[in-house]
């Protein structure tokens, strides 16, 4: 087997054998659930239930129970939607784009990043769906014939494109993730002793036998799906950005929006992956597979995408002045000096300034610093969407209609609730699913395993 260059840091540390990899990853699934996990899922489930309660109240009472008013007709709902969709970008980027770039370090993180993606997209979808008010008529967004009682959907609307973009993205991500899981489920099935669980994983593994033919097909389909998923990574957030950019509202309509939203999405997605993985590697003892080099690579992605976002902020700011358009300039002056200036500066600090700390090797290889910064980035990216949405519309063309937005308890409850649902789903995933792509990891053991690279005897 051809070895990689000796100056590359090994991706799997220590003396690991194929058997060790299986034990390390399947072991926690077979054992009893640890106490911390039980505590964590209880807390997450309580928060989730509270969120579901808020949603039920919202459906019963109507959209008036949010803090929206006639000037600020979009606020936390769409902010949360875009925030969650953005987070849902890292998984497919890691599994598809990094697969095409043959980045081996992705193998340690792709599984949980994809799971996170799927859960985040589900959380995102909740907001526009419940924003419809009469949620039982949600199918009206689909291009169904008029006999169903609806009018044809408006294909000129970017909101309509969103329905297609997100549902396509969700389906492809789900299939991609599941296909990757099949061989790993089969590994678990083969090891399971308890018949009920053996049956469970046997159904999940779709009768995988591990024959060479299965593997060939598996690899082919992975590449094809990666090819399909890559343009989707770009299209989803581009179309989300068009929800704003196709309008003529100053601050929303600007041509840089699509690529800048994509970059911001990857930025926030990686931050969330880091937040989750740093906890997971510790509690599930995966330090040999997800180590400092992985964290460093992810931090570099954060610097790059954070800086692209920074360049985009400055470009927008500059062009708003350069354009000489009064309304355009005002939108930005109002952003950084108006009543919501605090949110603009929070966004700038969290998204543009704080990731620059990763230029220092000490900081980008420090787990504590990374963990703190990853949370700061997530906060910053929430503020970015809030700034774009609320500050652009709260002062419209007629000063008599100017207003401000205050979230209601239902606004807050629903947002916090989605965080609860998200963590509940993620904890269930971490308990019952193989959290690392163990069969994929085995393919790089001899290329990039520490003891193999150093020619140690096994």
């Amino acid at each position, binding site marked *: 087997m*051809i070895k*990689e*260059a*000796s*100056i*590359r840091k090994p991706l799997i540390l220590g003396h690991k054998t194929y058997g060790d990899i299986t034990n390390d990853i399947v072991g926690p699934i077979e054992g009893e659930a640890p106490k911390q996990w039980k505590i964590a899922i209880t807390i997450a489930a309580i928060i989730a239930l509270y969120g579901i309660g808020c949603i039920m109240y919202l459906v019963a009472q109507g959209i008036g129970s949010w803090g929206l008013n006639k000037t600020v007709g979009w606020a936390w709902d769409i902010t949360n939607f875009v925030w969650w969709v953005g987070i849902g970008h890292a998984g497919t980027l890691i599994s598809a784009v990094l697969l*095409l770039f*043959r980045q081996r370090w992705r193998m340690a993180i792709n599984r949980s990043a994809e799971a996170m993606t799927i859960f985040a997209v589900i959380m995102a979808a909740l907001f526009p769906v419940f924003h419809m008010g009469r949620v039982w008529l949600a199918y009206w967004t689909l291009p169904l014939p008029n006999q169903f009682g609806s009018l044809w959907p408006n294909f000129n609307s970017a909101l309509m494109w969103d329905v297609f973009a997100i549902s396509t993205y969700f389906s492809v991500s789900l299939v991609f993730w599941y296909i990757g899981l099949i061989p790993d489920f089969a590994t678990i099935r083969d090891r399971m002793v308890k018949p009920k669980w053996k049956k469970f994983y046997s159904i999940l593994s779709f009768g995988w036998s591990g024959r060479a033919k299965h593997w060939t097909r598996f690899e082919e389909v992975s590449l094809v799906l990666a090819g399909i998923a890559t*343009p989707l990574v*770009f299209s989803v957030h*581009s179309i989300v950005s*068009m929800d704003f*950019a*196709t*309008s*003529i509202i100053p601050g929303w*309509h*600007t*041509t*840089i*929006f*699509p*690529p800048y939203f994509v970059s911001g999405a990857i930025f926030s997605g990686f931050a969330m992956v880091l937040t989750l993985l740093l906890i997971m590697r510790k509690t599930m003892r995966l330090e040999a597979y997800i180590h400092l080099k992985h964290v460093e690579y992810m931090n570099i992605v954060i610097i790059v995408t954070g*800086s*692209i976002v920074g*360049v*985009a902020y400055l*470009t*927008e700011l500059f*062009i708003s002045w*350069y*354009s*000489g*358009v009064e309304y355009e300039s005002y939108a930005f002056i109002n952003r950084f000096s108006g009543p919501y200036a605090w949110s603009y500066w929070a966004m700038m600090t969290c998204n543009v300034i704080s990731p620059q700390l990763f230029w220092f090797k000490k900081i980008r290889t420090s787990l504590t610093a990374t963990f703190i910064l990853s949370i700061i980035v997530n906060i910053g990216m929430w503020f970015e969407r809030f700034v774009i949405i609320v500050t652009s519309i709260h002062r419209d063309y007629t000063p008599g209609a100017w207003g401000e937005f205050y979230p209601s308890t239902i606004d807050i409850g629903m947002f916090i609730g989605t965080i609860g649902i998200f963590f509940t789903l993620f904890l269930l995933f971490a308990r019952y699913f193989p959290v690392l792509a163990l069969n994929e990891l085995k393919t790089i053991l001899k290329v990039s395993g520490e003891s193999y690279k150093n020619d140690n005897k096994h």
Partner: protein
Amino acid sequence: MAHDNKLQFELPANVKKWSMILMGVGILATVLGWFADKTDHHTYWWGNLLINGFFFFAIALGALFFYALQYAAEVAWSAMVKRIFEAMFAYIPYGLGVIVFVLLVGQFHGHHLYHWMDSAVYDPTSPEYDELIANKRPYLSAWFFWLRVLVYAAVFIIFARKFRQWSIQEDTVGGTEIHYRFYRRSAVFLVFFAVFSSTLSWDWLMSIDTHWFSTMYGWYIFSGMWVTTMIFATLTVIWLKGKGYLAQVNDSHVHDMGKWVFAVSMLWSYLWFCQYMLIWYSNIPEEVTYFQTRYEHYMYGMWGVFAVNFAVPFYVLMARDAKRNFKYLTRVGVIIFLGHFADLYMAVIPGTVHGHLEWGFGEGHHTTFVGWFEIGMFLGFLGLFVFVVSRALTKANLLPIKHPFFQESENHSI
């Protein structure tokens, strides 16, 4: 090493001969074009000089960017072809020279490509006063504009020289110290590049349509730059292999080059489409003028450029085998290379000679495509570019034999 005899590139006599012939054709077309061009202050002539100046400069700058990107991203496969990119960015000073010449003459009112260089537009008492341009004065004032030009030039030239110097040094010294220095400095260069690639597009190209603005513009120009760089590099690799050089560059390397041509073409198409679609959709007078001008007078040109530069690579280079097939790569490469030249033409000319599309030189505000003139000037610059690049190729080994990733790159197989 088995291929020592082919490590040193020798400039074939016919390359020298043909690049000289092309340059001769270029000079002839340029001189004759000057006299034939009847547009106001030879606007069309200057416009073409700017297009050629920028187009080939952009290929060289794109090469420097891609080169730095390889180090910053710890890429191994491209180690085998890194000398090609070095040779390409050797053209940066020449390209800058042409652009600076065009800008200088404009500053002294030798031509009117840049409306904002006319001081009358800033004078409220003048009938030429233009409030919109006057508002942009802090950015477009002569001292700040020229300061930017100097900073761009200094940064690009210094990084290009240093990178080349270290790279050649590595051939004798070996080790990893130079490699890590490259890694750190590349990241620094990329930061400069991220800002300057946008601002220089605003300064030199977007400001032609002085009233118009688009936040996407810098990234759109950058993506076009990047595609042409990848095409030229791919064609050079194929050509060198045909001459018996670069034996270690295998199908997988060529495949990867082809992937870049494909991927960046899609990036360009994505950015072109988003910019166009958002402006068309919202139809705001301040913004839509840009496409309105092109729609009225250059409809076929505008859509033709998009169609060719998107559809040709999309349909032809999608398949794996096409990206490993030298013939396909060459043909597609040549078509979209010209396509991206046409793209730059569409960016510059409609804003300068507000005329209708007519064949042959016209008077005053009526011009455009002549044929022999534009093609001649393009060929002349192509000759110069090929000459500079191939001469730079002879000055170092074609392969970086002591690159820490050399072996990994040699074993590259996908």
